[in-house]
């Protein structure tokens, strides 16, 4: 599973992307967040305030209960500020 980070999630994790193999208990975006937050202090800081984080699975916006599986690209980022 490929994880990509943008804006201050990228800065806090220190990563633009990483390949991960979460345990089988991780079935959705919410479970993935909980698991990723344990990977480093930077990850913990990045995921500290869930309300400030948005996710996309395979380039489409996804809520916390959206399923994730091996082979997916899951992105985490703050609320967008384009336009």
């Amino acid at each position, binding site marked *: 599973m490929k994880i990509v980070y943008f*804006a201050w999630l*990228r800065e806090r994790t220190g990563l633009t992307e990483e390949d991960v193999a979460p345990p089988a208990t991780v079935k959705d975006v919410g479970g993935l967040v909980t698991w990723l937050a344990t990977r480093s202090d930077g990850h913990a800081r990045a995921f500290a305030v869930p309300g400030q984080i948005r996710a*996309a699975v395979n*380039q489409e916006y996804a809520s916390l209960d959206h399923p994730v599986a091996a082979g997916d690209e899951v992105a985490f980022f*703050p609320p*967008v*500020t*384009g*336009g």
Partner: protein
Amino acid sequence: MIRVQTEDFDVGREVEALTKDRPGIGAVCVFVGLVRDVATGEATCAMTLEHYPKMTTKELERIEAEARSRWPLAEVLVIHRHGRLELGDRIVLVAVASAHRAAALEACEFLIDWLKTQAPFWKQEETASGPRWVDAVASDDARAARWTKKKDRPS
């Protein structure tokens, strides 16, 4: 049409190209967003726009398709820049051409409202006290949400 680029764009040339040899077009509505001086309350000298390339085009095309399904539009053009931009630089262009002005005006407003809340871009400003990520604005969500309530122009 969707373009995501670092380069600037020429508003006049884009509008000209949109309407050229399209005699059914009677109205063009254009929105241009610029880097302004006090986006977050602190003086801004420049900003950097980061985006999610694989998702950006997909999302912008989805928004364009949604606008076309709501209004009879002859042409739609969205140009969104990324990278470092300075004060006064153009960030985004939305241009909509239609036979009648109501469709062009409403679709243009719809597109910029949805861009603000759906296009995966993030702005980091350079201020006197250092770089600072621009927070999303609740009023932008409220403006975008108006369009989900009914098909035509929101109140």
